[in-house]
């Protein structure tokens, strides 16, 4: 168990990003859990720099796609181009062939592009004209979206949101953090300052160790009860899917690993539950209209307050 990994990653990210420790830690949990992240926040709250810094310190190949409404799937996955010299068509890889892909403003891309990306996320491969190409491993997508945009956007439907392991909302920083950000930006910032926290093949070995983290039968039973509660909850019209619960246990494993344990405790589940579950749930219209609940995160917290974990 590498108890110092979290601290090493946070120390590197802090060199460029101010006040985003929690979000950086959640990115690390998602990476170790083998999932993809949706970052939501208004422009200028350090979504892109956070993703870039994370990729740099993890030693991952990083590519960024700025999604636009006129984009085509081949702009992302690549396509066949004619090689005049060889007089044949050859496959030219698109930017999706990388370790960490920043899909900036995913909700501005048309549904065809979104589903092509989501297929890549799910299968870790792309198929163009019958040719299937494996994506590099590890493969992680960090997609961003602006919650304040309503024109020229294609909101992700529920089934696509369900593919994201976590949704992390980046709020505005508090005034003390904001002062630090302004001060930091007056100085020269250099991404080269961020050093890799791994050497050689270490990420693969760590991912393997995370997979070995033990989950007891009682913990699985606890998750099943939580899932059932989300489906019975009157304030929700859509409960958690089995995939959501699988994602939750993967995140709990990663969390246990980062805390130096080789087994999951209920705390590991609770601490990531809102980030993993909230974006997959849908509030019931009557709950929205009567204002009985602010958002799905609150419902998740209420459920975890009610369900007794194995103690």
């Amino acid at each position, binding site marked *: 168990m590498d108890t110092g990994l979290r601290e090493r990653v946070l120390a590197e990210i802090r060199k460029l990003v101010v006040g985003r420790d929690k979000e950086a830690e959640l990115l690390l949990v998602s990476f170790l859990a083998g999932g993809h992240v949706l970052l939501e926040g208004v422009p200028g709250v350090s979504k892109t720099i956070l993703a870039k810094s994370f990729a740099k310190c993890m030693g991952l190949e990083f590519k960024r796609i700025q999604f636009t409404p006129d984009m085509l799937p081949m702009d992302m996955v690549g396509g066949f181009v004619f090689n005049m010299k060889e007089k044949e068509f050859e496959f030219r890889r698109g930017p999706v062939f990388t370790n960490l892909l920043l899909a900036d403003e995913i909700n501005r891309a048309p549904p065809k592009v979104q589903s092509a990306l989501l297929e890549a996320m799910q299968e870790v491969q792309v198929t163009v004209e019958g040719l299937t190409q494996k994506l590099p491993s590890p493969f992680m997508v960090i997609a961003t979206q602006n919650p304040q945009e309503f024109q020229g956007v294609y909101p992700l439907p529920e089934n696509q949101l369900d593919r994201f392991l976590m949704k992390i909302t980046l709020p505005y920083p508090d005034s003390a953090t904001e002062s630090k950000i302004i001060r930091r930006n007056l100085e020269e910032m250099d991404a080269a300052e961020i050093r890799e926290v791994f050497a050689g093949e270490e990420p693969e070995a760590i991912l393997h160790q995370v997979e070995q983290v033990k989950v007891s039968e009682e913990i699985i039973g606890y998750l099943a009860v939580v899932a059932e509660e989300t489906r019975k909850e009157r304030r929700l019209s859509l409960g958690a899917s089995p995939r959501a619960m699988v994602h939750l246990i993967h995140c709990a494993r990663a969390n246990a690993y980062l805390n130096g344990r080789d*087994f999951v405790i209920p705390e590991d589940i609770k601490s990531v539950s809102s980030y993993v579950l909230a974006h997959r749930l849908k509030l019931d219209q009557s709950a929205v209209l009567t204002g009985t609940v602010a958002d799905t995160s609150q419902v998740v917290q209420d459920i*975890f307050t009610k369900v007794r974990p194995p103690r």
Partner: protein
Amino acid sequence: METLLLAVDVGIFALLGGAIFATRRIRPPSIHDVAGAFQDLDHSISKFVPDLSAGFTWGEAVERLKAAGIKVDWPKMESSLAGYEAFRYGGRELPQGGEDEVVKLSMKIRRRIVGYRIKRESTSRD
């Protein structure tokens, strides 16, 4: 007048003595291992710490009780908890010993003084 004051004094001291006796009367349960101690602590928290909901985890309970200013040897208590969790969720051997501090904490909670303190603190926070 003096007799009346004396009677009032005797009454006050009798009440005080009774209260102290009542808290001391709660004897530590016969607990032989750390698993039993944590089951007992779970029972005490569920009954006497009103602001910890049914879904509380051990980490949350420790944080809450520490914040309430309960005086036990917390590093020892946390070490017992780590051993118990490894047994409970990790399939390890149950650690030998380490239950004393857990029992002590449980008793402090049961003696309601702590319960009152937690209640008062949570009310003042609201």
